[in-house]
C-alpha cells in the first residue's frame, strides 16, 4: 500500500492518469530501457540486476529465441544462429556490408539488388527488422514487469545520421514487437536532453556519440528548455566494432607470421577471436597491455600481447575518421571552436583514452563525462517519452531537430537536384512541380535519393514513387505538384496533386531498402503463428485500442476548447460520432470500428484547424517583459 502519494509539480497525482511510457536505446552492442519514475529518469534492470541488454539474438529453433547475456555467452558456440550488431544491417542491402567476409552469418540478398539483406538461421530467413524486434520485445517485457502494466508508448532512439530506410526499419521493428512508437529520437539529441536538464546547461553543446556501430556528431543550442539542433553529421558505419575488427586482423597477422601452416578460420573461431578482440580493447582502457589467449578449433593456440601503443597505432585512423564529420558539422553550424560551451561524450566507445584525447585536442577543452556514456541516451529518451505521453504538463521542453541528409530527385543524366537541404529543421516540406512530356500521359516516376553528392549513383536511393491517375491531357498540359514532407521522426512521405484539375494523383511507393506493407503484415501474422480467429481477435483489439485512444484525445480537446471554438450543433455532431464509435467498440466488427474512427476524425478536422489557430494566437498573446529578453 502506498503510504504517501508524492506528486511532482506539473505531474498528475491520479495514478490511473499516469501513462506508462519508456525510452529505448536500441544499440548496436547493448540496448536499454528507461522510464521516468517520481520525476526521475531511471534505467530499468532485468531480474539479475543488469541494466544493459546485449543486442544479441540466438535462434535455438522456430519457437525458442534467446536474447541478451545468455545469447552473448553462446555466441562462439553457435555463431551462425547467434546474431550480434544487427543494427548495422538495418535498412541495408548485402552490397552495403563491406566486411561481410569477416562476419560469420549466412547472408542472403533481398528480393531486389538493392533491397534489405536477410540472414539465414536455424529458424529460417530473418530480416534485420525481425531480429531487432526480438530485442525490443525483451525490453518491452522487462518494462511491463517493472512498471506493472501495459505500455502506452515508447520513444526509440536512432543514430542522428540514420537515413530514411534505417529509420523506417527501426519503426517497423517496433511495430513487430507490439510497441506504439511515440517518436523516433536522434541519439545525440536524447543525450543532450538528459545532460542539459541534469546540469541546467545553457549555450552551445557538442554531442560526440561513438557507439558500437555508428558515429554521430550533433551541435545543439540549449536555451530555456529549447534544444535546437544546429547541425548534425556522422558515419552510420563507424563504431566500436571497427576497433575490435582492427585488433582481430592484427591478431590474425601475428598468428600467420608465427606459424607455418595456418588453417582458415571457421565461423566459431572468427566469433571467438572477435570476442577476444573486444575484451582486449576494453582492457586497454585502464591497462598498458592486453594478452589475447585462446584455443582454436583445430587445436592450435593463439597467444599474443597487444600494447596500448600498438592499439593506438592500429586504430588512429578510425579516430581521425570521426573528425571529418565533426569539422563538417561545425562548418554547417557556422561556429568556431571557442563558441562551444561544452562537449559531451556518449557511447561506450568514447571510453577509449585516445578518443578522449582526440576530442580534447580538437575542441581545446576537456570533454564532459559525468553521465554514464552507456545510459545517457536511454535516460534522455525516457524524459522525452514522459513528455510526449502527456505526463508532464509544463511545456518547458521543446526539441527542434534536423534532417541529417539532403533529399534530392534524380534528373536528366543521373544528376541530383536537391530539394531539401541537410540540417533543415523538422518538420519540413518542399513542393516541386512536374509536367507530362507525352500526350495523354497518366503516370510518371520520381526517384528520390538521400545524400550530399551530385551523382545519383553516389547517393542513397530512398524510393521510387509512381504517380498514377494523372488526368490525360496534351503534353506539358498537366501540372503535377508533388510535395515531399519529412515528419518529426525524420521519415519521408509524398503526396501529389494535378494543379489544373485538382485531381489527387495516386502515389505508389517502392522503397529501395524498406519492407513493403504486405511483408510487415505477413511478419506480424506469422509471429503469432495462430489460427484465423486469433488474427481476427488481435485485429479487433488493435482497432478498439486505437478507437479508445482517439476518443480520449478528442474528449480532452473538447473539454479544453469545445465551448469556445465550436457552436452547439458542431459540438453535437462530434458527440454523435463519438457515441456511434463507442457503441461499435462493444461489438466485434473491427472494420466498422476503423470506418467509424475515420468518420470521427473527419468530423473533427475543422475543430483541429481552429484549435491550431488559437494556439498560434495564444503563443504570441502572452507577451511579457521577460519574453522580450529572449
Amino acid at each position: 500500500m502506498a503510504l504517501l502519494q508524492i506528486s511532482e509539480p506539473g505531474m498528475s497525482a491520479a495514478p490511473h492518469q499516469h501513462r506508462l511510457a519508456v525510452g529505448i536505446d536500441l544499440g548496436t552492442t547493448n540496448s536499454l530501457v528507461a522510464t521516468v519514475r517520481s520525476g526521475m529518469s531511471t534505467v530499468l534492470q532485468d531480474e539479475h540486476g543488469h541494466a544493459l541488454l546485449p543486442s544479441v539474438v540466438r535462434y535455438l529453433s522456430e519457437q525458442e529465441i534467446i536474447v541478451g547475456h545468455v545469447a552473448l555467452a553462446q555466441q562462439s558456440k553457435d555463431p551462425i544462429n547467434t546474431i550480434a550488431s544487427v543494427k548495422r544491417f538495418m535498412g541495408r542491402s548485402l552490397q552495403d556490408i563491406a566486411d561481410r567476409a569477416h562476419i560469420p552469418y549466412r547472408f542472403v540478398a533481398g528480393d531486389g539488388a538493392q533491397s534489405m539483406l536477410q540472414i539465414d538461421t536455424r529458424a529460417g530467413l530473418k530480416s534485420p527488422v525481425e531480429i531487432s524486434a526480438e530485442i525490443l520485445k525483451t525490453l518491452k517485457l522487462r518494462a511491463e514487469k517493472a512498471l506493472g502494466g501495459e505500455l502506452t508508448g515508447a520513444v526509440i532512439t536512432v543514430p542522428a545520421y540514420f537515413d530514411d530506410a534505417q529509420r523506417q526499419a527501426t519503426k517497423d521493428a517496433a511495430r513487430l514487437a507490439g510497441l506504439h512508437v511515440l517518436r523516433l529520437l536522434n541519439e545525440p539529441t536524447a543525450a543532450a536532453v538528459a545532460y542539459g536538464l541534469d546540469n541546467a546547461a545553457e549555450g552551445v553543446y557538442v554531442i560526440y556519440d561513438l557507439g558500437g556501430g555508428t558515429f554521430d556528431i550533433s551541435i545543439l543550442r540549449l536555451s530555456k528548455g529549447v534544444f535546437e539542433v544546429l547541425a548534425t553529421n556522422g558515419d552510420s558505419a563507424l563504431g566500436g566494432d571497427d576497433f575490435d575488427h582492427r585488433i582481430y586482423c592484427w591478431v590474425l597477422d601475428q598468428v600467420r607470421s608465427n606459424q607455418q601452416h595456418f588453417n582458415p578460420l571457421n565461423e566459431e573461431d572468427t566469433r571467438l577471436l572477435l570476442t577476444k578482440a573486444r575484451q582486449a580493447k576494453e582492457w586497454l582502457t585502464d591497462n598498458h597491455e592486453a594478452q589475447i589467449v585462446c584455443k582454436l578449433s583445430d587445436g592450435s593456440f593463439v597467444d599474443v600481447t597487444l600494447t596500448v601503443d600498438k592499439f593506438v597505432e592500429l586504430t588512429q585512423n578510425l579516430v581521425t575518421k570521426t573528425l571529418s564529420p565533426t569539422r563538417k558539422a561545425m562548418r554547417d553550424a557556422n561556429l568556431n571552436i571557442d563558441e562551444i560551451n561544452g562537449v559531451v561524450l556518449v557511447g561506450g566507445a568514447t571510453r577509449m583514452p585516445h578518443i578522449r584525447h582526440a576530442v580534447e585536442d580538437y575542441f581545446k577543452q576537456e570533454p564532459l563525462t559525468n553521465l554514464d556514456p552507456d545510459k545517457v541516451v536511454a535516460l534522455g529518451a525516457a524524459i522525452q517519452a514522459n513528455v510526449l505521453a502527456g505526463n508532464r504538463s509544463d511545456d518547458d521542453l521543446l526539441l527542434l531537430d534536423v534532417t541529417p541528409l539532403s533529399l534530392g530527385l534524380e534528373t536528366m543524366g543521373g544528376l541530383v537536384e536537391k530539394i531539401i537541404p541537410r540540417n533543415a529543421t523538422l518538420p519540413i516540406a518542399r513542393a516541386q512541380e512536374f509536367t507530362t512530356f507525352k500526350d495523354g500521359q497518366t503516370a510518371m516516376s520520381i526517384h528520390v535519393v538521400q545524400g550530399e553528392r551530385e551523382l545519383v549513383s553516389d547517393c542513397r536511393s530512398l524510393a521510387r514513387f509512381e504517380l498514377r491517375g494523372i488526368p490525360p491531357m496534351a503534353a506539358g498540359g498537366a501540372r503535377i505538384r508533388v510535395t515531399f514532407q519529412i515528419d518529426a521522426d525524420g521519415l519521408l512521405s509524398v503526396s501529389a496533386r494535378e494543379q489544373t484539375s485538382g485531381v489527387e494523383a495516386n502515389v505508389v511507393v517502392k522503397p529501395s531498402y524498406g519492407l513493403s506493407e504486405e511483408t510487415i503484415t505477413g511478419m506480424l501474422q506469422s509471429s503469432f503463428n495462430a489460427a484465423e480467429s486469433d488474427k481476427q481477435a488481435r485485429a479487433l483489439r488493435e482497432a478498439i485500442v486505437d478507437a479508445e485512444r482517439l476518443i480520449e484525445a478528442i474528449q480532452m480537446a473538447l473539454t479544453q476548447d469545445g465551448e469556445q471554438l465550436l457552436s452547439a450543433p458542431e459540438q453535437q455532431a462530434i458527440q454523435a460520432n463519438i457515441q456511434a464509435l463507442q457503441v461499435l467498440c462493444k461489438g466485434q466488427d473491427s472494420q466498422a470500428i476503423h470506418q467509424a474512427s475515420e468518420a470521427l476524425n473527419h468530423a473533427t478536422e475543422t475543430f483541429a484547424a481552429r484549435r491550431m489557430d488559437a494556439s498560434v494566437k495564444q503563443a504570441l498573446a502572452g507577451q511579457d517583459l521577460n519574453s522580450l529578453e529572449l
Partner: protein
Amino acid sequence: MDTQNYFRLFDLPVQYDIDLQALQGNYRKIQAEVHPDKFVTASSSERLQSMQTATLTNEAYQTLKHPTARARYLLQLQGVETLQDSNTAMPADFLMSQMEWREAMEEAQYAKDVGALEALLSTIQNAGKSLQAAFAQALANDAQAASQLVRKLSFIDKISADIHDMISRLED
C-alpha cells in the same frame, strides 16, 4: 492564423530590417504550441494540422531569417517576382567582380590556401551586406532595382556556398 504573411505570423512589421531576436523568440513560442511533439497523443486530424502548421512555421522562420530569402519574399508580397532563373542579365561591373572572385577561388584552391578562401569569403560577405542595405532603400521606391539587388544577392550566396564547399574539401 495569418499564413498569408510570414511577418504577421511572427508579429513583426512588414519591412526589411527586422529584430532577429524577436523573430527567434516568437518562432520558439509558436513552435512550443504547435510542434508535433505536443500532439503525439492527439487525434490524427490534430496531428496532421500540427505537422502542417509546424512545417509552415519553419518555412516562414527560415525565409525571414535569411537576408536574401527575406528580400525576395518582400518583393513577392508586392507582386514582384525576381525571376532568378530567366533573368540573368547583370551590370558589367558586377560581372567583373564575380569573375575576379572566381579567379581568386581557383588560385586559392590550386595553392590549397584555406586562409585566402576565408579572407575572400569575408570580402564577399561584406559586399553582400552593402547590397542588403541598398535593398532596404530600394524596396520602397524602385521595385526593379530591388529585384536586381536580390538577384545579385543570390549570386553572392551561391559563390559563398561554393567557397564553403571548397574549404571543407581542402580540410578533409
